[in-house]
């Protein structure tokens, strides 16, 4: 049976890899994560991060192919070589550096809490005590909430989009996430009805890390230097600022 199923595996996998692994596969998350990446009805993704990926790939003369996969298993997808680069707003932090490598950062933001109107949540350990706080499973925000908000009820979602949706539904009192992503949600028609911004949480560098970079397999140094050079180049030649201006009215590279 074992041999038989292996043969089937080969047959099917052969079908799957008809186009040999020549292009560089950039993994992004399947769900809407505006303003960084949002799927449209044609199966394409748009957003600031998608534009940056395309600009970096063009600069580095890489033939990139964007591959959507589940965010909560995006690091295993990288190590299992289903993708070659993670371009899914992955923050560079100590825990992740143990298993994968990162390019230099390409943006950096803070984390804040969006709350239901009148929930009275403030972005401090005391302010969330006894409240239900939604976080995305596997994100730095989950790690932060588990470490710094011991008295809150933490609810885990597969995607931030689902946490936002439950905040809108009123099932949670607040959600801790990237401030830019929450801003985008609060500006939407749902966000305006239900919620407002409670402000940034105190930074914890060991969790929040040093900004967002492209995730790479360890030892992939050639690709890493290609990406780093390309990030520097698009920052120097104005492409980065031009893309950013389409989405934000301030510089999101951080210091």
């Amino acid at each position, binding site marked *: 049976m074992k041999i038989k199923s292996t043969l089937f595996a080969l047959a099917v996998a052969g079908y799957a890899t008809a186009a040999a692994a020549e292009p560089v596969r950039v993994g992004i998350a399947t769900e809407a994560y505006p303003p960084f990446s949002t799927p449209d009805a044609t199966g394409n993704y748009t957003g600031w991060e998608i534009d940056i990926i395309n600009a970096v790939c063009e600069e580095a003369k890489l033939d990139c192919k964007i591959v959507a996969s589940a965010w909560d298993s995006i690091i295993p997808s990288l190590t299992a070589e289903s993708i070659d680069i993670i371009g899914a707003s992955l923050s560079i932090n100590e825990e992740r550096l143990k298993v994968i490598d990162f390019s230099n950062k390409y943006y950096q933001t803070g984390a804040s809490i969006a709350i239901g109107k009148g929930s009275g949540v403030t972005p401090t350990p005391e302010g969330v005590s006894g409240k239900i706080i939604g976080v995305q499973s596997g994100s730095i925000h989950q790690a932060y909430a588990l470490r710094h908000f011991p008295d809150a009820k933490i609810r885990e979602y597969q995607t931030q989009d689902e946490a936002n*949706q439950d905040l809108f539904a009123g099932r949670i009192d607040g959600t801790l996430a990237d401030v830019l992503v929450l801003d985008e949600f609060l500006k939407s028609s749902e966000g305006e009805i239900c919620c407002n911004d409670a402000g940034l949480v105190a930074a914890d560098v060991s969790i929040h890390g040093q900004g967002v970079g492209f995730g790479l397999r360890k030892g992939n140094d050639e690709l890493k230097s290609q990406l780093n050079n390309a990030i520097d180049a698009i920052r120097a030649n104005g492409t980065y600022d031009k893309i950013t201006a389409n989405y934000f009215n301030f510089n999101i590279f951080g210091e």
Partner: protein
Amino acid sequence: MPEQTLMKPHRLIMVLVAAVLVLTFAFMMDWAWLPKYSSEIFDALWITIALLVSSIVAGFLLAVPIGLVQVTGPRPLAWLAMSFCTLIRGTPILLQMWVLYYGLGSLFPYMPGLRQSWLWPYLIEAWPYAFVALTLSFAGYEGEVMRGAFKGVPRGELEAAHAIGMHPFTILRRIWLPRAVQRVLPTLGGELILQLKATPLVATIAVVDVYAIFGRIRQETFIIYEPLLMLALIYLILAGGIAFAFRLLENKLPARG
């Protein structure tokens, strides 16, 4: 199967191979994370079991009338029950869960007064949706089975009871239902295991069951294979327990005639 000795030479070899595999897994792989998460695993396991047992009990209680009205009528009720079974059996349970959780949730802000109602404390939790979705699913599948079981009880037995002047409700309680349940019992163990295999889907609606906790372990430790193997083993043990319990139960009950 005629009686056979359990220990034939090739079985010994298979057991040996299995033992070598298990030992390889146990010693060659990384299990250092296990003690750290053991209490969380047990909590989550409890949630899986609680959801399984409660949804099966509630689902079965629903399945009895759903199966019955399809045999007895009245027509509109029979039609309703049949449509329910078709709907449940015709769509993926994952989608049903999402309709209940995210679909309904997206309508909450447009329902004034909902947040003041007594239901609200339940509506904000995730487990009630998991429970309802699993219950409806089990009721849909088992309702179909119960329909066949009610139909399959020999007419003569019911007519005999009727002839000696038994009240229709008494006939149902004393003869029809017990005989129908007896007929479904041999397949019930299998249905339970199918239901067990549906429970991990609750992780997609923010319920931390045993599947979800292993998802968190994989993310926090970045270890991929060991948690997956452990998770598979846990489901094997749970399913084995269910199968074993039903075999005991079947041996206890008189053979069906």
